[in-house]
């Protein structure tokens, strides 16, 4: 019988590293992620430290998922644009990005998605406000939040770019 447990947690997009850290703390404590949903994380029992969990924003790319499986990773699932992987630690260190360039590329993917969703919310918010549709402010608040997130992601990109002047 496979024991499972479900946690509900909310992470802002710019905190995806914290989310990953938390998932790995869970794995360290003997609970490895087995499925994901909206703010919902389901874990199953594992040996403490048996797995490393990684997540990444990914547009449709089944080739990539197959590549991860080829190197011994398991695809756990997808929540919107985020995909979750895990791999047994006995296979060695499991990382998705090992140089500054690929970290920047990943952050730029996130920034692009935030930008377009932000613009979408802004336009809908403005349109609804003009037409006096109730709760139009919700879209405007969402747009503000997304633009704030975009700023945070760009801050991370800038940090990496200044690092890249000296290292790769």
């Amino acid at each position: 019988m496979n024991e499972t447990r479900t946690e509900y947690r909310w992470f802002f997009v710019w905190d995806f590293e914290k989310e990953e850290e938390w998932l790995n703390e869970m794995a360290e404590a003997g609970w490895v992620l087995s499925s994901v949903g909206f703010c919902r994380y389901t874990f199953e029992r594992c040996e403490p430290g048996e797995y490393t969990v990684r997540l990444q924003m990914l547009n449709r790319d089944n080739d990539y998922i197959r590549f991860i499986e080829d190197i011994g990773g398991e695809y756990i699932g997808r929540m919107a644009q985020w995909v979750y992987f895990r791999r047994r630690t006995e296979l060695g260190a499991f990382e998705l990005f090992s140089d500054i360039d690929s970290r920047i590329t990943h952050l730029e993917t996130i920034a692009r998605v935030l930008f377009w969703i932000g613009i979408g919310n802004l336009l809908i918010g403005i349109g609804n406000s003009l037409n006096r549709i109730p709760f139009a402010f919700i879209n405007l608040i969402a747009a503000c939040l997304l633009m704030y997130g975009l700023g945070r992601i760009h801050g991370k990109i800038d940090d990496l770019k200044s690092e890249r002047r000296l290292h790769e």
Partner: protein
Amino acid sequence: MPENALTEATYYILLALVQPRHGYGIMQETERLSKGRVHLAAGTLYGALNALCARGWIMPQGSEQEGRRKIYCLSDKGEEVLYGELRRLKELVENGEAVLEGNNDHE
């Protein structure tokens, strides 16, 4: 043909592909060659492989079958780039040694 410096990841991928290998094989060979110092992460490697294929420095080998690991090999162009990089690296090492080890006698 002046080329910009290769990244460490690119250099090791090309080096590993002197013999045809699949993705996991490239990771292992890189770790072996660098005695565990260089670890190629999955996403970094995947992105680099696609970029290298697009440039024609490496190519997928054999027929693509469903469920089979893709095997890559170095192209002639890739080999040329690799030798060019080796020359550049040698120059770096020689200059470093000349300056730091004090055998840069001018007279």
